[in-house]
């Protein structure tokens, strides 16, 4: 029974990692590549680590595996967000067929400040007051 779970979980994990690497090759854009790698690879690594925990079947190793999985689940989105933010500010182009770019004309590349709609209305009101 344990063997069945080990084989199934490790096969699923390997398939997800293979899909992540194929997506890294095939996707047309840096941001789509980041999206593929964070989701699929995190799931695949989690499944393979759970297979290792089932194989050893000890409390110490299971807690170690759970610590690794929690760490990966916490850090993968943070790292992806940081590298995506840095590459957007350094001018990596989006895919030409992508429809929506929410950040366009809404940030200052020098000071890296985001402008929202609320700030603009406040500025207009201030101008009216001064006039």
């Amino acid at each position: 029974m344990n063997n069945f779970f080990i084989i199934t979980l490790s096969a699923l994990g390997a398939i997800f990692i293979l899909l992540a690497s194929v997506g890294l090759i095939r996707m047309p854009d840096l941001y789509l590549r980041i999206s593929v790698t964070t989701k699929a690879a995190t799931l695949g690594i989690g499944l393979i680590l759970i297979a290792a925990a089932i194989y050893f079947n000890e409390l110490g190793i299971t807690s170690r595996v759970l610590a690794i999985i929690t760490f990966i689940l916490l850090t993968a989105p943070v790292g992806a967000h940081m590298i995506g933010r840095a590459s957007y500010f350094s001018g990596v182009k989006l895919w030409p067929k992508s429809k929506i770019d929410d950040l366009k004309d809404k940030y200052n590349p020098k000071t890296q400040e985001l402008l929202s709609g609320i700030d603009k209305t406040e500025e207009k009101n201030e101008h009216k007051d001064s006039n």
Partner: protein
Amino acid sequence: MSVYDFLYYIILPVLAISTLLIFIRFLIGPSLSDRVVALDLLLTTGIGIISIYSIYTDQPAFLDIAMIMALIAFLGTVAFSYYLNKRDKNE
């Protein structure tokens, strides 16, 4: 066919092929950010290979190294994005 044969002859080659594909992106990636993402995924795949190998050789001590590799992958991504930001502020 035992579990060991399955892991050694099917799972490890699949992981090796995916490592090869990621390494192609690491070599051809148009921008520096692509290479950073590929490096992050390369280290993450390394964690999977280490855990499969710890099952194959029956050595749970390898999982400690997997944990340290996860740490290094995260720190590397954060440091690279920090310096990418700095680099274009200076230009």
